[in-house]
């Protein structure tokens, strides 16, 4: 087919298992994990794409894709239901010669060279499906084009003492990268990669093919492809990003990121301006009912809820019921949870569709300096009457 050329196509890596989210990703891909009351993690990169004018997005799925596929659907909630471009879910598929799962991030893109070529793009934007942030990719693309870079990597400053946990970009004064170190013991700088890359497609394609032919490669962007492009003398630039960004790949970071939405001056201002809206698939639920007996402060309450209990510093997602004499504190309650009267939930994440029966106790209180151990209840679980789930317990 004769398609109109696209300036930039985005490829969103959504196939990871997210095993560090434990029970929350038992039957769900990480990007489909609920966030912030009415969103799912993937809404953030997807909305960023749309708000940045990128209207062709391939979503690479592999692990437990059912829920994610259904959620993405035809892409209509994000305005990505287009006749040319739009959103496409790209699972691994059987081929005539060789069929295989996505072996790594680079291999996932390699296997979809055909998809990308259909749009004949100048550039390809590689994104992860497990980060919470708001970013104008168009600005990064302008930077990439102005520098005539072969590859541009978004970086943010991290505290020097934490730098050894990240992929670190060592740059010259003009932002060009002279060295890339994956989790260096003695970091030379604190420019941490955010896992957001823009490549010139002609360059990336060449290196993806070469990477595939190398049997020793782990087919990973950070470990193999980017070092190879750098070593071949291509122009790599670091694009400095200032705003909020959070990898929500662990229980504690997922909990923290939810909590960082709250308060008068939240760390992450989810409102943004009208051009930076975060879009989500909306379910038709009535507005929430807040009873006389309810006491809610410093919290998000999404639609379709009925609240009769006390909710402090928490996120209550769509379709939840919080009965009388319930206490929810410092917790994330995912969609469609029922919390029966007398239950107490503190420092916890309660998964989608759970039922917390009368007088159950989940989690506990912590002194301000104490490490918070988050209790987690997986999707569709029932916490029995009077059952006690200890701080840090995951079930």
């Amino acid at each position: 087919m004769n398609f109109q050329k696209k300036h930039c196509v985005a490829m969103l890596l959504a196939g990871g298992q997210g095993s560090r989210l434990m029970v929350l990703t038992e039957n769900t891909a990480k990007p489909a994990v609920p966030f912030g009351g009415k969103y799912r993690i993937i809404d953030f990169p997807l909305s960023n794409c749309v708000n940045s004018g990128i209207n062709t997005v391939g979503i690479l799925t592999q692990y437990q894709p059912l829920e994610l596929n259904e959620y993405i659907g035809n892409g209509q909630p994000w305005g990505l239901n287009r006749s040319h471009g739009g959103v496409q879910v790209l699972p691994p598929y059987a081929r005539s010669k060789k069929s295989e799962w996505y072996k790594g991030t680079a291999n996932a893109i390699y296997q979809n060279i055909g998809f990308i070529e259909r749009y004949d793009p100048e550039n390809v934007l590689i994104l992860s499906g497990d980060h919470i942030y708001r970013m104008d990719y168009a600005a990064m693309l302008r930077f990439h084009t102005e520098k005539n870079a072969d590859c541009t990597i978004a970086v943010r400053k991290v505290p020097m003492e934490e730098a050894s946990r990240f992929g670190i970009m060592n740059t010259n004064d003009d932002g060009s990268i002279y060295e890339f170190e994956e989790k260096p013991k003695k970091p030379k700088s604190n420019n941490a990669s955010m896992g957001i890359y823009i490549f010139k497609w002609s360059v990336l394609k060449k290196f993806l093919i070469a990477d595939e032919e190398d049997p020793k490669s782990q087919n990973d962007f950070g470990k193999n492809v980017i070092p190879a492009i750098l070593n071949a003398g291509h122009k790599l630039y670091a694009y400095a990003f200032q705003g909020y960004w959070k990898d929500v790949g662990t229980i504690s970071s997922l909990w923290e990121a939810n909590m960082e939405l709250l308060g008068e001056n939240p760390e992450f201002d989810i409102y943004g301006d009208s051009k930076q809206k975060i879009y989500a698939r909306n379910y038709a639920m009535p507005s929430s009912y807040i009873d006389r007996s309810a006491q809610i402060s410093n919290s998000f309450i999404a639609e379709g809820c009925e609240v009769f209990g006390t909710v402090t510093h928490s996120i209550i997602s769509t379709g939840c019921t919080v009965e009388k004499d319930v206490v929810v504190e410092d917790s994330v309650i995912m969609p469609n949870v029922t919390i029966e009267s007398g239950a107490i939930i503190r420092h916890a994440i309660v998964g989608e569709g759970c039922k917390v029966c009368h007088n159950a106790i989940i989690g506990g209180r912590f002194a301000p300096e104490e490490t918070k151990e988050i209790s987690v209840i997986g999707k569709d679980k029932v916490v029995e009457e009077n059952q006690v789930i200890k701080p840090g317990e995951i079930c």
Partner: protein
Amino acid sequence: MKMMGIIFANIYDSSLGQLTNKRTMASLPFGGRYRQIDFCLSNMANSGMDHIGIITRFNYQSLMNHIGSAQEWDLELGEGKLEFLTPFSMGHNGSYRGKLDALNSAMIFLQLATEEYVVLADSGVLCAIDYRKVLDEHIASGRDVTVITKAGISNGEKQLDLAVLLDEEGKVKDMAVDYAADERYLASMGAFIMKREKLIEAVRESVARSLYHLERDFILRSFYKGELNVGVYQFQNVALFNESPEEYYQSNLALLDSKVRHSLFRSGNTIYTKVRNEVPANFGENAQIDNCIVGDGCVLDGKAEHSVLFRGVDLHKGASVKDCVIMQDAVIEEGAELEYCVLDKLVHVTKGAKLRGMPNHPVIVERGETV
């Protein structure tokens, strides 16, 4: 599908005063996030109907914006699907006198349809109803016209469009139009089922005799002439009649009653509406929200009691709202006190402003006003 639908978007416009100055009855916001038409449109979609005509007279811009491509209802716009029957498309200047006049202008739409039955519905009566059940009863009874009715609405004061009195056997004994009937009468919910051919015939015959009022000139007249077998379907669940500003105000507050709420939203149906992509409601440190409906996108740091707060209401610290219906995107500043008020969309209540209506006469503030 054997049934098609027709929705009248402008009925009672004039009786709702300022609230329908710039919009149709059908697009009047309701219950925190809805427009009135969401109810009958969702009922039709939930009943498996996909051919629906919306008859509009004027001010239908906001209604068309709201419906958009109708994807939220899983409906499609187009011929034989969801169609807007605007005065212009009907070769009409919008000055029709009654529903029969309006239907006469939509004659081609009715004639081209293939469905055997037609449901006529007013957008001003809100309920969750399965029209398939009404159709089953209608067919089983062998009647010409079934009027969907509700008991307990008539009170000797409220003017009913069509009041129906049944005898002990459930047969229609008396009918009256525009009548403040006593408690024995059932109130028509402005919804009817009949064969499409029957409706076409009724429209043609009535309009030819300069008769235009559906209830009076067709149903009542033909019934008394013995030409029409009329019966009622008695709807058992909650039905909210919004035919005056006072009723509109009371109906909104009625949602605070869980029986009403659950009958409308949790009786196995779904009421669809346009998506607005708001963030969840944000309750601040000082929020004191008692017995309220709260829409997405609200930022609440003040006090609200026994009220409906639509999407995007900004209630500042130190502001207080009681017995109010506050539509989308209102800003209520510190020290403001509102009691028995209906605020239309985008109203700004400045610091310290005080407004107080009466329970049966709420103060109505027009769209976009600053108080």
